[in-house]
């Protein structure tokens, strides 16, 4: 193929400081909470090809068969080109909703397609929920740590974000209860509780059945919504399946967010929200204002893909691959991380959350790790406040087993150097060796329990 020259375009003179000032008065209040930082610049280096990046959240799309992809797209072109290139309904096509109902059914949820809206990825669903529910200053509750991608959304709607501590059984619902009581006494009514109850991003933990039941009870009691974000539910590698909050609640006080990003493709940008009719009505208006409709072409592709009836097999194939990678990462962590480190052992999803001794700042550690050509996400990204500075998120879905082993080995080496240095500085000796605990078959505790609610 010959190289096509770029079309004639204008190269704008870069703005000067005065130019920036000229626009400054025009910016909305909410832009002041959108920040750039030196740490974000640091992340620019993770894109270098020689870097083993455990920082991403990428599913592995390399196993999707190109032949099926070609056949599906060809069928669309031959049979419905005009429709596939046209606008579609704001709520999404009925056929797409049928696919969604099928996916949710696979996790035991019964859904009325009328309660479903198709969105441009799950991320848009989070945005639309905030758009519908949040006024500046409203309290939004989420987990600590929470999905790093949700933080900028909450901030852009100027929510007052309060985080509730997690442990190995997910959000501490007892602490949530105390917080709700406190807020009630202060005369503040939170709009919703945002949770990723299953294989949480970033912590990898799953909320216990008891807590799930209590959480939906609390939602009813306080008449507030729970926003259940469930991108990973079908990616279970072990343990027993737990009912989603939506199923436990029946959909009265739970707004459900789903996506095909992790079980088909993040590139097609197809997600959805399920909400009670009065809430849905507002969400649809918000969606209309945002982008009229979700890509029609994407929805035609999804329809074709589901019609082939092999989607569950594909998910099972992914589960096999990811289970192996999770196990590789856990084995590498046991081998290469120092005794004083702890980490979660997720039964599904894409992430492991590791916590280091509290004198290690994982932002600074990243600088050292990058010199060893390996990257991770510093824990601070998952908090509104200064917490999480000694934790890190590690992704195991987007890299090969060999790279996982080598990546963890390199991170382990830079941690070991910092531990050794700290001991030399303080005269402290290393914490007890974890090997003994592992032999006992005891679970590794993922978090230092502080017993504090966020806020």
């Amino acid at each position, binding site marked *: 193929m010959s190289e096509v020259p770029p079309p004639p375009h204008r*190269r704008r*003179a*870069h*703005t*000067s*400081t*005065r130019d*920036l000032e000229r626009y400054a008065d025009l910016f909305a209040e909410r832009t*002041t909470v959108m*920040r*750039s*930082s*030196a*740490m*974000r*610049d*640091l*992340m*620019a*280096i993770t894109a*270098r090809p020689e870097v083993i990046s455990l920082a991403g959240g990428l599913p592995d799309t390399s196993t999707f068969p190109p032949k099926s992809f070609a056949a599906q797209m060809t069928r669309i072109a031959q049979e419905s080109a005009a429709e596939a290139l046209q606008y579609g309904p704001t709520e999404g096509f009925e056929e797409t909703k049928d696919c969604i109902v099928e996916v949710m059914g696979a996790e035991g949820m019964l859904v009325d397609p009328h309660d479903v809206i198709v969105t441009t990825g799950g991320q848009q669903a989070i945005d639309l929920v905030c758009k519908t529910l949040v006024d500046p200053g409203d309290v939004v509750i989420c987990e600590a740590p929470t999905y790093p991608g949700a933080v900028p959304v909450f901030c852009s709607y100027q929510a007052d974000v309060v985080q509730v501590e997690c442990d190995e059984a997910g959000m501490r619902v007892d602490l949530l209860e105390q917080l709700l009581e406190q807020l009630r006494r202060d005369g503040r009514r939170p709009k919703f509780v945002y949770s990723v109850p299953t294989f949480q991003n970033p912590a990898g933990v799953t909320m216990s059945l008891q807590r799930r039941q209590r959480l939906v009870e609390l939602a009813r009691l306080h008449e507030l919504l729970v926003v259940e974000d469930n991108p990973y539910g079908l990616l279970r590698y072990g343990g027993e399946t737990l009912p989603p909050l939506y199923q436990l609640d029946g959909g009265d006080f739970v707004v459900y967010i789903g996506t095909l990003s992790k079980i088909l493709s993040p590139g097609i940008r197809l997600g959805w929200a399920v909400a009670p009719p009065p809430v849905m009505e507002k969400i649809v208006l918000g969606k209309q204002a945002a982008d009229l409709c979700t890509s029609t072409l994407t929805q035609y592709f999804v329809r074709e893909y589901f019609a082939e009836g092999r989607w569950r097999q594909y998910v099972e194939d992914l589960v096999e691959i990811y289970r192996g990678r999770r196990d590789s990462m856990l084995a590498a962590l046991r081998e290469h991380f120092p005794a004083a480190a702890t980490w979660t052992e997720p039964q599904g999803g894409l992430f492991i959350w590791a916590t280091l001794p509290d*004198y*290690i*700042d994982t932002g*600074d*550690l990243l*600088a*050292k790790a*990058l010199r060893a050509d390996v990257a991770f996400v510093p824990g601070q990204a998952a908090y509104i406040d200064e917490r999480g500075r000694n934790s890190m998120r590690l992704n195991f879905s987007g890299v090969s087993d060999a790279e996982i082993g080598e990546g963890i080995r390199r991170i382990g080496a830079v941690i070991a150097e*910092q531990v*050794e*240095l*700290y001991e*030399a*500085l*303080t*005269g402290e000796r290393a914490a007890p060796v974890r090997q003994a605990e592992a032999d006992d078959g005891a679970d590794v505790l993922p978090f230092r329990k502080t017993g504090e609610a966020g806020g």
Partner: protein
Amino acid sequence: MKVAVLKGGRSLERGVSLRSGARVEDALERLGHEVVALDVGGDLVKRLSAERPDVAFVAMHGVGGEDGTAQELLEILGIPFTGPGAAACARCMDKSQAKHAIREAGLPTPDWFAFSQTAFRELGAADALGGLEQRLGFPLVVKPSRGGSSLGVKFAADPAEVPQALVSAFSYDDRVLLERFVRGRELAVSVLGDEALPVVEAIPAAGDSYDFEARYEIGRTRFVCPAEIDPAASAAVTEAALATYRTLGCSGFARIDLILTADGPQILEANAIPGLTDTSLLPQAAEAAGMSFEQLVERILDLALKPAAA
């Protein structure tokens, strides 16, 4: 003229460097020069030899680009380049070296002690910390000796915070500084040729004065240029900056960061290749002096090609 813009590289400040570089490339094109953009990597010498540019514009920040490494290669290849030479870059990059030179020249800089990691690991330097902390007082500042932006710079409010701050700083360099914290106004003086540009003041948002990260977050620090300081203080600050520039052997340009205390200026460090992004201080200072970004870039090129004419 054929100008090679050196940017990126493996430094931790790669992101800033790419933005500086892109902005310089734009300006050069508008000035009618032929631009060769080079993201610095293993093929740098090969590409420079093949392209044979008339001059190299070094828009790299941090270790690898601002420390004299790239400059040494350019000197060997005989390609004129912007900014200070290899030796001056190396002196500026290492804060400990720079402070020694500044103090030997009789210029004011806060008291400090520098340590290598080996000193702590193998020579028991930790035992000396108590005494030093007493001499420097609290809060004190811990910073990596080499490195830019705010990366790894921490305050320690009391002795208990020192080890953790040291671990952070050692993440960026094998040598760190413990420095006396001096209170005052935070100023930056950019020098172009042998001329000081108007003084810039950085005013951190309330509550952020102990957070170095805030200096690099748009919206958390306000920059005022020219700084609103009285003429005598301004003259003293400018004089100190120019003396530092000469002492460290800088040429072309550099930015000197200082604190204006009640007793006059204290020099913190010199940046051999200050940022050239939309929000960087050198372009702001040039603008305050009535120079557009293009004029600034043209002047920097002139200084590289005709150092004597500066």
